[in-house]
């Protein structure tokens, strides 16, 4: 229910009973005043000798004055106006005439207590006055028709007020609605248009606008800090890449000059340097993925060339480990739309894992196949694989917690989590399956374009 409807209903609920009450009160007071005037007029008549006249012949006096219709003015009795119909009772409240109605018991009770009483019975007003302590005319009751007090003016005023409230509330409702709209739009970045009236709604809109501005500034500061941090990670990664490349060069040179146990040690050093490189790349990619909702940098890329590049990257370490790494791609280019760096890191992580966990004499095969609409990339190895129950958990997004530091699993948690996330962001499917007699098959598939 709208504000306006609520206001109108509330006003109606208050005003209608209230005006009925006022009308009732007004009725009561006007009757009381009339009754007092009637009692006074009666007393005046008694003072002028009406009591004595009545006591002389109560029944006939009563009858004469008890007629309802306008009557001829009796001589001696000189009321200026017709007071109403008179009924006469003795001290025991017995009527002077048999055709008179008995006195209302409530009126009788009050009369006894106070010497006079009045009562309205719907159409007529009755006033009783004890004019003598005894005798046949001890109590006189004057009655007169009541002018009905109409209820409708009060109701009309009430309705008018309710209507006016409804009309008056309309601009307020419009302004509040406008403010609501402005706040809703503010979520899309639009500033809140300030309602500059000096009233409560204006105040509300000013507070909202100020709060929103504060919030926006805080968000902006956070975003800038986030950007700085991402840039820092990217910069640091970049700074590490050059010495790492040089280090790898020295390690290879050293390995080529050594033999025996030293050569074996250098082989292990090479693998560690390779792991370090993969970690740095993954951190760079993770920083990009974690940097909020930045969109992918999509472009058309050749998946075949990408596979070739990734295989060339891992072949030195595969050779060192005596793991046979081979690949097959279709003859033409396999163009796919995606983020070059992210997809390359995805494939690189799959190949890296396949090589790293394999044993000397093992194999890794990377196969890319495509038709006009879809592609399918498989990384197959004959390494130890994983336990069947671990299969579904491969690539769970755990790197926000501790997978990156978990070197017991070779940090593969980070690489596979990134692979999973990059695949998701591209709407590609990434799945893992065990192969017989041993090994693991990672399959990435999706739509081209």
């Amino acid at each position, binding site marked *: 229910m709208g504000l306006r409807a609520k206001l109108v209903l509330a006003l109606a609920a208050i005003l209608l009973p209230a005006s009925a009450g006022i009308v009732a009160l007004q009725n009561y007071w006007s009757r009381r005043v009339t009754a007092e005037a009637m009692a006074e007029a009666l007393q005046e008549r008694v003072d002028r000798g009406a009591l004595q006249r009545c006591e002389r012949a109560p029944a006939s006096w009563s009858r004469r004055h008890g007629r309802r219709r306008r009557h001829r003015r009796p001589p001696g009795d000189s009321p200026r106006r017709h007071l109403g119909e008179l009924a006469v009772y003795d001290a025991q409240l017995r009527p002077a005439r048999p055709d008179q109605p008995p006195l209302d018991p409530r009126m009788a009770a009050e009369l006894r207590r106070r010497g006079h009483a009045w009562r309205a019975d719907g159409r007529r007003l009755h006033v009783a006055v004890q004019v003598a302590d005894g005798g046949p005319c001890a109590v006189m009751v004057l009655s007169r028709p009541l002018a009905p007090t109409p209820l409708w003016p009060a109701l009309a005023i009430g309705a008018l007020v309710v209507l006016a409230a409804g009309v008056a509330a309309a601009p307020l409702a419009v302004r509040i609605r406008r403010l609501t709209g402005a706040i809703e739009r503010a979520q899309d970045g639009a500033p809140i248009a300030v309602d500059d009236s000096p009233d409560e709604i204006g105040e509300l809109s000013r507070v909202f606008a100020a709060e929103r501005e504060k919030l926006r500034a805080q968000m902006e500061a956070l975003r800038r800090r986030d950007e700085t941090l991402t840039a820092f990670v990217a910069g640091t990664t*970049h700074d590490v*890449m050059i010495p790492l490349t040089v280090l790898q060069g020295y390690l*290879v040179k050293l390995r080529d000059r050594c033999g025996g146990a030293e050569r074996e040690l250098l082989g292990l050093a090479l693998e560690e340097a390779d792991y370090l490189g993969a970690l740095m790349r993954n951190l760079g990619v993770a920083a990009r993925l974690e940097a909020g909702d930045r969109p992918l940098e999509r472009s058309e890329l050749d998946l075949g060339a990408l596979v070739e590049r990734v295989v*060339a990257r891992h072949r*030195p*370490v595969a050779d060192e480990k005596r793991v046979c790494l081979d690949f097959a791609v*279709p003859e033409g280019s396999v163009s796919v739309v995606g983020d*070059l*760096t992210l997809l390359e890191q995805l494939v690189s992580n799959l190949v890296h894992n396949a090589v790293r966990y394999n044993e000397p004499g093992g194999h890794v*095969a990377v196969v890319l196949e495509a038709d006009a609409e879809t592609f399918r990339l498989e990384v197959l190895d004959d390494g130890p694989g994983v336990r069947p129950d671990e299969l579904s958990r491969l690539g769970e997004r755990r790197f926000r917690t501790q997978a990156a530091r978990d070197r017991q699993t070779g940090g593969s948690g980070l690489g596979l989590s990134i692979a999973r996330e990059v695949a998701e962001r591209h709407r590609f499917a990434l799945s893992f399956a065990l192969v017989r007699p041993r090994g693991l098959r990672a399959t990435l598939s999706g739509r081209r374009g």
Partner: protein
Amino acid sequence: MADRILLVEDDEKLGAQIVGHLEGAGFEPVWIRDGAEARAVGPDAFALLILDLMLPGTYGLDLLKLYRRTSDVPILILSARQDTSDKVRALKLGADDYVTKPFWPEELLARVRARLRRPDIRRGDGPVRVGSIALDVQRRSVEVDGAPVELTRVEFELLGALMRRPGSAMTRRALVEAALEAGTERTLDVHVSRLRKKLGDAGRQIVTVWGIGYKIVADIAEG
């Protein structure tokens, strides 16, 4: 004559190492350390260019644009950033390939060799030679060290498919599609086995590739 390779790299140690790797692999490298000097170089004097994108003073991509304006020489980009737009722009501007740091010496050399080899790939129907095997599609003839070898149609198609991309593995499915009309991957092994036998010693040039299929190599030691 050794291929001359231009290296534009500002990092002293890395540059020296790359020069060492290239010399060790039998190339003749020329090393330029800064962008201004690199701008003055005529790219066509080299068989291949290796260009670092992060050069002080000159934006690597500008240099790439400059070279591409006049030359089609293969250009290999060195990149250290996990940033896609740089690589994509480099490829759009005409770079042939890129290598991201950190890289292994062998990795860089493999990329260099692949780029230098690329224009030699035969796409037409002319005679092809891999090691001691020669195949002529138009005459439908195969010779091993000059001696003709009789092959069935399937064997000829198999050998042809492999020889079109020497050194590259072909999947069993691709070979079945290329050579066997109604065959399966199981009968493929039978055909390959017969083909190897007919080629004699040269049959060892056809190498089984684990998890993929087969490939043909020029030198048996290479496989």
